[in-house]
């Protein structure tokens, strides 16, 4: 029981860093929150709405994303997010770091 909780907490910490990378990687094409959530889920990356929306706001406030409102349906305006030029630069660095990291960890765990 105690171990389960420990594992859950450690997984949460692990995922916290990875989620930014996952979100940035999926926003080369603009998406609104719910469509992004489904796109991530379709690829096996489950993420809570309560985690995704605050994360999108944070990435935008850091200048890594851009967003704008579109009103297709009066009752349902949608906010579309897309990666910014700064976000692209950050993403390419993160990708390189990620590859190096996974290589190292894979070697360690094998």
């Amino acid at each position: 029981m105690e171990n389960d909780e420990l594992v859950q907490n450690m997984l949460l910490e692990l995922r916290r860093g990875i989620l930014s990378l996952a979100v940035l990687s999926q926003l080369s094409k603009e998406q609104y929150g719910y469509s992004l959530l489904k796109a991530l889920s379709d690829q096996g990356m489950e993420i809570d709405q309560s985690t995704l929306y605050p994360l999108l706001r944070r990435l935008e406030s850091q200048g890594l994303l851009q967003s704008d409102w579109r009103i297709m349906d009066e009752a349902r305006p949608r906010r579309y997010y897309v990666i910014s030029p700064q976000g692209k630069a950050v993403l390419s660095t993160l990708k390189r770091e990620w590859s190096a990291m996974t290589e190292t960890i894979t070697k360690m765990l094998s």
Partner: protein
Amino acid sequence: MNLIDKYVAEVGKHLPLLKGREDIEIELKSTLEDMLEDKAEQAGRPRDEAMEIELLKEYGSPQKIASTYNTHPYLIGPRMFPTFLKVLKLVLSIVVIVLLVITVIQAATATSMQGPEFLEVIGKGFGTVLSAAVAVFGNVVLVFAILERTLPEKEIGDLSDNQEWDPASLAKEPSPDMIKRGEMSAEIVFTIIGLVVLNFYPQILGLNFTVDGKWVFVPILSEAFFGFLPWINLILLVEVILNTYLLRANRWSIATRVGKIIIEGVSLAITVILLRMPGLLGFTADSFANSPISAETAQTLVTVLNSMLPIALTVVLIIQGIEMAKALYGLLRINYKTK
């Protein structure tokens, strides 16, 4: 207003006061509408209230959802905290020391050092110290909580020590147990000068003038003061011995720190007694009756010296208090280290 609208409004109520609250609400409503549509599609029937309830239950309580948007759930964040602690310690110790010294002076000067009146002054003094400490704590927290919310992130970063640290600085850092030789030597020299003047040349501490071709000496300090001379001599001598020993040993030990605390404690007591002793001044305006000094000047001199003496003694008292606190701190640190 359907359930989703009510839910969104409830989330909005719990959102922290941040920009874009309306954006969050619109985006949340739009997402919930999308999710409900998916749900209805999956169920193969039109949306209804039961479906809304199920969806909102899955989504979570409005408070919980609102809290996820609060990216800064701290009163004083980790960036500000080290600076906050530094300022708090500094301000608290200054306020507490100053108020304690004032309490001791009040107890020594306004009461007969015993009985209910003395206890009342001491009690009130400690009450004041306690309430001032709480007020200082509250105010420092308030100031930092405001700074936390108003200073741009970059400036918060500048507040902390983010200069590059050089391990070589450790070598330059003297051990807190090391004796400061210059300070110690100066202390010994001045204590000896004080002893010599008080015992052999008390006339330095007075006013000399001629009346009809004869020298007249008016001492600044009264006989009552010199009645304490044996005690003062004893404590100064012990201090010279301790300081000389420390100069040879080159470091503080538990025994020498305890010795220092006792010496400073006795010195403090003597200073307090002197401070509350009436007639410390060795003369009155009448002492200058036959002198070239006019009666008016003599009166001014008496008034000035009468107010200067308690101030000088208070300064001595504060210095002794600081010395004692330093020794006490050193002792507590040693005990902590050895545990």
